């Protein structure tokens, strides 16, 4: 067989192009495979015979590589036949050893092997591997969110932590956390790739967020590539929607709508953590606040007064305590019952709070005993406050079935630095004694 015959009828396709990709020669095998005549191929751009996707990869990746390294090994390319069908081929290319004309660049010698069978098989393998990679990607993102949940103690830290974890894990343009506060969706945290997204908190929740919150079900897009979309999932716990996780998906995002389904799992994890953070906050509050009047309790009062002693030492200021005990409270309890008694305590707590200065601390020590901590307060002012407390408490209190009238005995005690060791105990004992002295005097009257 002559070389020319071998060239034309070899069991693979041969073609030669100029450095700029114009076909100058092609063998009969290739023309047969493509169903094209010699003139339909020679003189045209080889790239124009490739499927759109393959064409871009060929021009932007394979050709520059060929130019840089002189060869291209076994790359997959889809060639379009005359009838529009595709020929999957494995292409190898080298630069021609023939010296180019002066100032020109060498021709390109290309071999094509029919890879229909192999291509389909390999493609399946690749797609399976890709699917596994995507699943790992989603799981890693979920793992990040779970870690952010595990380390956050407060609702605020949690919101910021998960917004960052969701956005980074799934490579999203924006992730926002909205929390249900008193029946309204409120901005809590956002993470955005674009700088200057700080004003988002003034925005109203998106329609998606609102729907996810109202219906308690995820709102996920059907399509992501090519359009900027958003998604929202409820942050639920025990059938209750505590907030919404909203994300903005760039039109060029790597994932697919199927990948966004992991947001539903994230919503459940975050919802659980949110419920835990809220419970934690509630318990912390219960330990430090009086449930009935919402005033600081004895524990918080003692903690605060210790700090006030230190401040008083540093600033050389007076420290004043007003001990308040209701007069006639037992009678209200006996006459109208405990519910009425609770109402009186709540009302009096509010009135005492209204009688003191903004910086003063009112606490409930227990029963019908209250205390006011006044820092840097002259004896005259302390007396004024005490009088306002007495006057306030004395006003009649309207109950469901009657009117209660109680009074207040107020004992004032003051300490001036330097304070000795047992200052807090002494202040409390003195204040108590002063209060009882007033009460005893009143009862004698």
């Amino acid at each position, binding site marked *: 067989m002559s070389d020319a015959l071998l060239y034309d009828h070899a069991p693979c396709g041969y073609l030669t192009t100029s*450095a*700029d990709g114009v076909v100058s020669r092609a063998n009969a095998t290739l023309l047969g495979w493509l169903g094209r005549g010699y003139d339909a191929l020679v003189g045209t751009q080889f790239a*124009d015979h490739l499927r759109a996707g393959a064409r871009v*990869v060929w021009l932007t990746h394979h050709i*520059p590589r060929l130019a840089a390294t002189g060869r291209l090994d076994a790359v997959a390319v889809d060639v379009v036949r005359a009838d529009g069908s595709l020929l999957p081929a494995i292409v190898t290319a080298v630069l021609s050893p023939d010296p180019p004309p002066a100032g020109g660049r060498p021709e390109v010698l290309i071999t094509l092997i029919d890879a229909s069978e192999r291509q389909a098989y390999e493609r399946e393998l*690749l797609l399976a591997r890709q699917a596994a990679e995507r699943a790992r990607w989603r799981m890693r993102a979920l793992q990040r969110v779970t870690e952010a949940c595990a380390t956050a103690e407060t609702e605020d830290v949690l919101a910021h932590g998960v917004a960052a974890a969701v956005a980074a894990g799934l490579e999203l343009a924006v992730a926002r956390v909205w929390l249900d506060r008193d029946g309204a969706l409120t901005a809590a945290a956002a993470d955005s790739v674009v700088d200057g997204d700080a004003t988002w908190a003034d925005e109203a929740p998106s329609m998606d967020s609102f729907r996810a919150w109202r219906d308690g079900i995820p709102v996920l897009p059907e399509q992501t*590539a090519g359009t900027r979309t958003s998604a929202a999932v409820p942050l639920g716990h025990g059938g209750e929607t505590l907030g919404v996780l909203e994300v903005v998906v760039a039109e060029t*995002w790597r994932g697919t709508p199927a990948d966004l389904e992991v947001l539903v799992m994230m919503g459940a994890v975050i919802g659980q953590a949110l419920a835990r953070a809220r419970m934690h906050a509630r318990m912390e509050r219960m330990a430090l606040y009086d449930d009935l009047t919402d005033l600081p309790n004895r524990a918080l009062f003692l903690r605060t007064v210790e700090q006030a002693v230190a401040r008083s030492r540093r600033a050389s200021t007076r420290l004043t305590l007003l001990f308040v005990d209701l007069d006639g409270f037992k009678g209200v309890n006996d006459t109208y019952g405990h519910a009425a008694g609770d109402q009186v305590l709540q009302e009096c707590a509010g009135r005492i709070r209204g009688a003191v200065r903004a910086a003063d601390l009112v606490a409930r020590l227990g029963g019908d005993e209250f205390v006011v901590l006044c820092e840097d307060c002259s004896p005259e002012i302390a007396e004024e406050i005490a009088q306002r407390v007495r006057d306030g408490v004395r006003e009649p209190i309207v109950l469901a079935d009657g009117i209660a009238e109680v009074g207040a005995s107020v004992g004032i005690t003051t300490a001036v630095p330097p304070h000795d060791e047992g200052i807090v105990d002494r202040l409390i004992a003195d204040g108590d004694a002063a209060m009882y002295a007033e009460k005893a005097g009143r009862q004698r009257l």
Partner: protein
Amino acid sequence: MTATASDTGPAPGPLARRHAATVHEVRGTVPLLLSHGFGTSQEMWGRLVPLVEESRSVVLMDHVGAGGSDLSAYDPRRYQTLRGYAADVADLLDELALGPVHYVGHSAGGMIGVLAALARPELFASLSLVGASPRYLDDDGYVGGFTRAGVDDLLEAMEANFFQWSRSLAPVAMANPERPELAEELAAIFARTQAQIAVDFARAIFLSDFRDELPGVSLPTHVVQAADDPMVPAAVGRFLHAAIPGSRLSLLEATGHFPHVSGPDETARALLGFLDSLALT
């Protein structure tokens, strides 16, 4: 304009290293920043550089993920859109502190320059856009050159070829003869990272739409369109020219998507001709 001295070398600084930036200095000239596009690196300017560096300072760079750039700097979220690449260009120019530059961007490098110039106009003296496109998809009277099916096909072709051509990228990284097993492992990681970056970059380019940004360009702008560009139809060049106020359009005889490779003399003449026409030099 007379060149007094010239000097070439890698630029110092962390961002210059990240982008494998080199500065060739011809004193007294406003530097050209050559910014490559999809699939390529600064090597693609190899035939053009000798034609411009006699008379002009030239800065070369690789976008993160390409050529000699630092692959570890790749952040899939940052580079999800061309804005991440645009921010890199601005950051690099801040570090180089060369004053405003004449930006020459090829392909996706063109839109990267447009976005950078919109965000930081003071860093640029002019924009030259070679084979650039604000949108590749056809859309209601707009001819971008690609149908949605075509782009899906491209992304699929890239993803399906992922491992195949990540293998084809590998030998580039193999350069440690003493520890071949280590080199092979590193090469595999390197190649896969590069392949993933390439797919991400394709998505950032072919699924985006920056047409609305164009009227905001206030710099002198030169649209350079090659003949028979299989990536960017001539209609796109005309669209860019019409959409960017006061821009100049050059239609080259050089063919293909890389006129600076197929016709470097003509491309250099067009680029320098535009720069010479500006009051600035």
